[in-house]
């Protein structure tokens, strides 16, 4: 078990190195001259070169990567040349805002999705199954800005229940719902599609398995069969799916935060990318990768703890 966790941790770190290098390389090598962007089209080439030298963008890539990675680890993330603010507090603050929104969506939708997915499986082929499956299938296909537009028009414009654009809520629960419910609905639509499908497939598979047959033929009541024998095995894959969805969520956040003018990291990344604000863009994207890897790591460890076949294989 310990060895499994260590191995898993090592793999995550390797992936992180690859990812951070890719982020760095992609952002720096692809066309788009930082100094030129900062100084505008009318600056002389000499001024541009000078600024590039000052920013260190004329050094070899690997050397720059190492310097940058070292600074990142030390917490020295620099200043945004475009926004003229220190990067670290900016990125971390925006990240916090996004985590609040994403956490809200996850907390609300994961239990509902799992429940409905299991319900669909237990009614396999019946009306409830068809309705849940088709709903999930349709929800997952809808881009966030489409759903977002619908909810804004209906609930904010016509009914006036919610603000048209959202801000970071204070701790009071009414405000949390007021600010976060609308922007999280588009995210929940997609999440519901994925998670309920996985929960359904896992449960159906488990229901058809030979060990479920054994449990039924032992004469156990239906509740025992489902509770003890089916769900224990069928929900394991769902844990992994939820953790992979953390990655999706961030992508969805870019859209939702733009649509609702919510000050999160997605919006920050989009603006930084469009304006070539590399000192902001790189750590922001890297933070997302780190969060994704942490979520996956936790999910893998959780699955290993719950699944004896992984737990006992050393």
């Amino acid at each position, binding site marked *: 078990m310990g060895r499994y966790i260590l191995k898993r941790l090592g793999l995550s770190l390797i992936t992180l190195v690859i990812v951070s290098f890719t982020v760095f390389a992609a952002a720096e090598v692809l066309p788009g001259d930082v100094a030129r962007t900062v100084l505008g089209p009318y600056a002389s080439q000499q001024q541009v070169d000078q600024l590039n030298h000052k920013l260190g963008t004329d050094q070899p890539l690997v050397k720059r990567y190492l310097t940058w990675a070292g600074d990142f680890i030390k917490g020295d993330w620099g200043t945004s040349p475009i926004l003229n603010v220190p990067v670290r507090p900016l990125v971390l603050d925006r990240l916090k805002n996004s985590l609040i929104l994403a956490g809200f969506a996850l907390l609300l939708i994961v239990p509902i999705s799992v429940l409905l997915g299991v319900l669909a499986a237990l009614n396999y082929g019946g009306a409830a199954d068809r309705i849940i499956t088709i709903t999930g299938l349709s929800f997952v296909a809808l881009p966030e800005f489409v759903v977002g537009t619908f909810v804004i028009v209906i609930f904010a414009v016509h009914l006036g229940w919610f603000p048209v654009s959202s801000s970071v809520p204070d701790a009071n629960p009414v405000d949390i719902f007021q600010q976060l419910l609308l922007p999280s609905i588009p995210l929940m639509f997609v999440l519901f599609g994925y998670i309920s499908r996985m929960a359904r497939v896992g449960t159906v598979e488990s229901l058809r*398995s030979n060990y479920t047959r054994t449990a039924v033929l*032992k*004469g*156990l009541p239906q509740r025992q069969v489902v509770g003890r024998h089916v769900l224990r095995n069928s929900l394991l894959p769902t844990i992994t799916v939820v953790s992979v969805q953390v990655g999706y969520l961030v992508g969805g956040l870019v859209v939702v935060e733009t649509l609702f003018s919510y000050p999160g990291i997605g919006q920050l990344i989009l603006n930084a990318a469009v304006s070539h604000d590399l000192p902001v863009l790189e750590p922001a994207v890297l933070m997302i990768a780190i969060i994704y890897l942490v979520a996956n790591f936790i999910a893998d460890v959780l699955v290993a703890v719950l*699944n004896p076949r992984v737990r006992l294989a050393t």
Partner: protein
Amino acid sequence: MSAVAEQAAVRIEGLTVSYRRRRKLLRVLNDVSFEIGHGEAYGLVGESGCGKTTAAMALMRYLPDNAVVDGGRIMFGDEDVLTASDSTLRKWRGERMAMVYQDPGSALNPSIKVGEQIAEVYRFHKHLGKSDALAAAIEMLSTVQISAPDRVARRYPHELSGGQQQRVMFAMALATDPDLLVLDEPTTGLDATVEAEVLDLVEQLRAQFNTSILFVSHNLGIVARVCERVGVLYAGRLIEQGPAHELFQSPRHPYTLALLRCMPRLGMRKDTDRLDSIAGSLPPLGAEIAGCVYADRCPIARDRCRTEPPQIEPVNERHGARCFFHEEVPGIPPQAPGIEQVPAATVEQEMLLEVQELVKAYGSGTNAVLAVAGVDVHVARGEVLGLVGESGSGKTSLAKCIVGLIDPTEGTIEFEHMDVTKGRSRGREARRRLQMVFQNPDNALNPSHTVGSILRRSLQLLAGVRSKGQQDAELEALTRSVRLEPRHLDVRPSALSGGLKQRVAIARSFAGKPSMVLCDEPTSALDVSVQAAILNLLVDLQRREGVSYVFISHDLAVVRYVADRIAVMYLGQIVDVGPSEAVFSAPHHPYTEALLSAIPTLDIDAKARIKLRGTLPSPSDPPSGCRFHTRCPRYLGDICKTEEPPWQDSAGGQSYRCHIAPDELERLQTQDAAAAADATGDSVA
């Protein structure tokens, strides 16, 4: 054992079941009636698709969703299982009726400890508390002869061997001492020695519990060993039933007779005996048949058989057959025309294949697993070498090295005086001359190509036949040689039955006129009647073309029938090798002895079973000295643990690896066999 009691434990009356498939109802069981007495073991046998599993599942009322019961009753005591309320059914299941089936690995919940899984039965049916239930479960584990039951109870299923898993299933099934135990192919997929252990356990448990048993199997030998009465299913109909010995000794339905004649019995040899096979094929599922379901394949069918469905005609008070002319059945002559009178190809006496010091390792460093651990094999031109061993013995890895699908780690392979050690660098000539027939014909033919194009491609690449006209001629000859018909060439494999597919696969391997064909379990995926036809074909081809076979099989009767010489493998090594008859008679390696005693046969003179201790060691950490010493029934002492055994040569050209000398071993083995024969003779009398 006792005769049928006054009132049967279970009575099945007119059971008729269909499956709904694509808006059509296909009948799988048609008016099946039989009863099982108290404490009786009733065997239900038949080939795949006969409906035997459906019958077993109907008994537990656990049919798939698309099954429809069209009629009949299953009387369990005074109540009908098919109409019982859900709560009654739930009470019966687990308490009064229980089931053990194939593939114990998937039948146990992977994430619950086995002790708890057994304890559940006690908690729900006997209302025991948690710790009492667990104690009872551990007790039950020792009843099914699991050593260290308290330790095993804390294990998860994947930590147990196949044999242990099946014991756990038995413990769970018998926990409440049920009235009825349904066993659905409980040993299929297990190795021969494990299968024998499980069957021993069934016998012992029968003596201990007075449970009625329905035993469903495709293996006539096993049913003959376990059951008192037997019913034979064919195309959803019960066509014969009677006391096991009587039915197997003097069957009264033409199908039962034919089925029995298809099996290679010990003592049959390809040079002298030919296997019977059944012409034609099973009627398609759901076919409307006016008369007898077997009429199309029956040698004594008349007009009446095709128009009027026969009822079960009594042979005597306990034996009946669904045949108008059952009295003629004993007189049906063997259908096989005898040994084919083709001139056997003349064969030079020379070595064809020489494998030396072959090692195949998977993985590397400390994790390395030696699947083949130093093997020497040679095969002469025109000779059939049988390769025998259980799973994990390395026989498949050895075969793959020989045909060049994988490269050996060490050692050399010489074939027709060519060095073919490295599979990938083999020339066309070597590939053409050394081909392979695979185990599973469903897998071995590309489902998206037609039979014709599969064979043509082989002719092109192996025989180098390029011109269309010449290809057509060769293709026709090839098709005829495996007794396929030209119309089969235009179809894709999915349209063919298993037997026909295997013929295509055989034709493919013979396309380049090979001198050696490696047959990897070529009949183990096939039904007995089909197996016979394929074995006959292989034997004819071998005689006519003068090819050599390396014939891998877990079925000793089959190997004995086709092989000239036999090599027995255990944990990556050959432990016994020699002419077939010599290997089959004492003295032989103690492992061979155990394997031989494990085969369930139809012959009444049951032999003593040699029981192997423990479980198969992992090939990644083989035992020191003699690899078999951890399980050997003739274990001598430390010498077996520390010293690798020498090759011993016995009379008749056989060699085996053991510390016991031939004379001594022969004395021990014949002596034990005689003692065992006495013992079984006593118990029968």
